[in-house]
């Protein structure tokens, strides 16, 4: 019996394969399992190649998974288009459409012999039972229920609910298709059973959501009252959530005429005293840089969510990457420090978004949340989150005394000045992008400029001591280390588990705060480290270089970087760690040789 299964399914948009994955995830959650689902598409809006991965487990899931346990190919041409996103290995059971006419011994997977290969007349069964081949996805769900014991009741319950409005005939057709799939599976049992053990948490409430919706919900929870933005894949759903919900909380949302107007409106809302945000992807971040610089010098709180996708320029709009790090940290001319945070999963997106608002409000600054397409679009099941544990921080409001001869940019011990907003009697001031004295009046004095730059950069010093924005797992004194953030952190967490299970002495640092670089935290972490990897999905190894700018990195710390749309597998990271272990052993042995 298994505790964990990774499904990978591919076909075309017309095959409903993503809907099937969705149904499977919902059913798994209903049965008390943890689940994660990711999707991937071709470039057509409708019937292009389409795939999804669903990972189901009895324990919390760290990462959508590496090699597939079960591969479902409704046609081979589309399956193969996904390459490394759907990796098949010697432990995979491959289920494919018999109508492809390909023999079980001749499936087009180069260099790999799967555990078992089964051709199933999926389309024919669909046609026979539901009257249309398009019911293939429901047949597949029936096969999965039969072979792996997931969703036997829950899938059809979910489908019934979803299709109730469309009529009984449709529901019945799906039921027949599902039953046919299940019957086929029962009649052709797998060589080795792969049923998943029943979950012990069945009956517990589970949330199901994706990174974008979670981000928006967290923002509203944190008190965000304004969203200004523009549609751009893969971030648009954040704006869409706001258009559904924010009115109910007395807030508003604007789909502006372009990216710059979107952030401009958000800057305006912040000036007016409201917590506000914008969301975009790479191309939008580039456009927004001028406004971000303005918010920095005007010391206005603002949250900017960048859901990274393949770059540069239009790049790969539907694929994930981590290559906006430099842009997030350094975009916009001049000497600016702008905090950059990065969630690693849908679950911690809630906490990190709240943190972003808190940091933005406390330090009176724009803050960038670096999400990515993988986290934004993937659906996770979550245990309910106790929202009472989160502290909400609001901007420092001027006291009565402050408002006697109010100076907006007054120098204080911690460099943070009370901030007024229009409507506040006594708090009138001029906000601007031009350099200014304490009152806000323009200046071109070198002395003032130096002092103001000091204020605007030193105010962030306490951030560098925020150990709670870093996660260290594994043996704290391990000589071998990994550093990873964002969606890659999940892959590395799984790699850590696998490595420790094999007796390797390694540790992992996951920074949630990417910038400013908290040198102290890194120095502490690297103290014991002799060899290691900074693992990231950027072609230029941006994280490695950013760290190198600020931290004395151990000589043995190397970069493991690659372009987006090229996933990392936990197994390959473990293999890389093993290489480091051998290198370390050899160098120790070398050191122990008697001197000549």
């Amino acid at each position: 019996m298994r505790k964990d299964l990774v499904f990978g399914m591919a076909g075309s948009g017309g095959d409903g394969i993503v809907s099937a994955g969705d149904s499977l995830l919902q059913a798994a959650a209903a049965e008390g399992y943890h689940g994660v689902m990711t999707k991937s598409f071709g470039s057509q809006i409708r019937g292009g190649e389409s795939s999804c991965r669903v990972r189901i487990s009895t324990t919390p899931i760290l990462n959508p998974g590496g090699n597939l346990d079960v591969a479902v190919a409704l046609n081979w041409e589309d399956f193969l288009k996904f390459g490394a996103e759907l990796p098949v290995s010697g432990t995979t059971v491959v289920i494919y459409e018999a109508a492809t006419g390909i023999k079980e011994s001749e499936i087009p997977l180069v260099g790999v012999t799967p555990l078992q290969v089964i051709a199933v007349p999926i389309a024919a069964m669909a046609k026979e039972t539901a009257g249309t081949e398009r019911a293939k996805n429901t047949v597949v769900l029936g096969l999965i229920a039969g072979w792996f014991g997931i969703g036997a009741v829950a899938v059809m319950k979910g489908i019934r609910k979803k299709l109730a409005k469309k009529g009984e005939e449709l529901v019945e057709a799906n039921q027949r298709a599902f039953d046919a799939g299940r019957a086929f599976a029962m009649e052709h049992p797998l060589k080795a059973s792969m049923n998943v053990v029943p979950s012990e948490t069945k009956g517990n409430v589970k949330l199901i959501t994706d990174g974008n919706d979670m981000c928006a919900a967290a923002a509203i929870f944190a008190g965000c009252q304004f969203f200004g933005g523009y549609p751009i894949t893969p971030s648009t759903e954040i704006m869409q959530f706001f258009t559904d919900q924010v009115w109910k909380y007395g807030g508003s949302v604007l789909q502006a005429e372009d990216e710059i107007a979107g952030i401009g409106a958000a800057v305006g809302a912040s000036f007016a005293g409201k917590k506000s945000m914008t969301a975009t992807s790479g191309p939008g971040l580039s456009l927004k840089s001028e406004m971000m610089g303005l918010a920095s010098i005007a010391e206005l709180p603002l949250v900017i969510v960048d859901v990274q996708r393949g770059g540069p320029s239009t790049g790969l709009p539907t694929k994930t990457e981590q290559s906006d790090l430099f842009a997030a940290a350094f975009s916009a001319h001049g000497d600016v420090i702008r905090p950059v945070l990065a969630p690693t999963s849908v679950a911690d997106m809630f906490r990190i978004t709240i943190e972003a608002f808190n940091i933005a409000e406390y330090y009176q600054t724009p803050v960038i949340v670096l999400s990515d397409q993988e986290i934004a679009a993937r659906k996770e099941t979550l245990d309910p989150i106790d929202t009472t544990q989160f502290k909400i921080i609001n901007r420092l409001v001027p006291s009565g005394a402050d408002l006697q001869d109010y100076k907006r940019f007054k120098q204080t011990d911690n460099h943070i000045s009370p901030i007024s907003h229009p409507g506040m009697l006594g708090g009138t001031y001029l906000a601007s992008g031009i350099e200014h004295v304490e009152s806000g009046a323009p200046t071109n004095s070198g002395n003032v400029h130096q002092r103001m730059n000091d204020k605007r950069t030193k105010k962030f010093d306490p951030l560098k001591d925020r150990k709670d924005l870093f996660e260290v797992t594994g043996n704290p004194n391990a000589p071998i280390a990994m550093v990873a953030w964002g969606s890659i952190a999940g892959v590395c967490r799984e790699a850590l588990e696998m490595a420790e299970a094999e007796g390797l002495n390694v540790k992992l640092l996951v920074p949630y705060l990417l910038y400013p670089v908290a040198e102290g935290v890194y120095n502490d972490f690297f103290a014991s480290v002799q060899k290691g990897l900074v693992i990231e999905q950027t072609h230029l190894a941006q994280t490695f270089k950013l760290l190198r700018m600020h931290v004395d990195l151990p000589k043995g710390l190397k970069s493991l970087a690659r372009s987006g749309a090229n996933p990392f597998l936990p197994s390959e990271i473990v293999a890389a760690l093993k290489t480091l272990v051998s290198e370390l052993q050899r160098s120790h042995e070398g050191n122990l040789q008697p001197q000549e």
Partner: protein
Amino acid sequence: MSATGTCEYQPKDYKSDLKPIWCPGCGDFSVVQGIYRALAAVGRPPHEIAFVSGIGCSSRIPGYTTAYGFNSVHGRSLPIAQGIKMANPDLLVLAAGGDGDGFSIGGGHIAHLIRRNMDITYIVMDNQIYGLTKGQLSPTSQKGRVTCTSRFGSLEEPVNPLLYVLAYGAGFVAQASPTDLVGMAAVIEEAIRYPGFAFVNIQSPCVTYGEEGQQIKGLKAISESLSALGHNPADRLAAMDLAQHYGSKMHLGVFYRNPEPPPTYGDLVKERQALLSKDALPKERILDLFIKK
């Protein structure tokens, strides 16, 4: 054929091998056919044509022609087209995009292309929705329209693309649609031939996100020919009056054509270059400019 010479070209000569990603039934298939026919009628060789677009479903169009294409960034086809035309005024320069690309993020550029009167033809495929990103509000969506980003209905009046360009003084303004294929190809051809900035708004329905009433059948029902109405395209005010019906009526044909097209920006640049070239120092002696006399 020599540069700027014309030859016998068939519409097929302008069709590339790249297969469109558009959904079957998309209005843009007819539009690109109209462009192939218009270009064949004008007869410029494909390699002398520069076709610039922004981002969106309709912005994929340059790749489906055999011209030099530039599928650039969202809303910036016009600045790039201007640069191309200024660098080589002999090229035939076309720009294309959707209603969002042109009138939302790109809206600021249109006014300036018009007042510079560069000899560029701008084709907008107007479907009142953001198709590529999955169905959000567009600047030409009707007020009250329910979309992914306006679930309770849009609160905004739409932009009127026709009035917009007419008010800025464009010299050639027309509207077309796949409901009238002959008219569409003719109007695109006329726009290309017009010596100066020319604008064609094409009502090209989105078969995936468009509303039922906005598909070909619905468009036919509100369609009216400007020439059949007896409209005089030399009358800008009459054109603007008719343009106000954008959204409720689909007027097809030429709204406005300047009967006495002024010199284009390119003409004026050529004139200036000719005038001043005699004053040019040889390049090797350019630093003489800094010698105090």
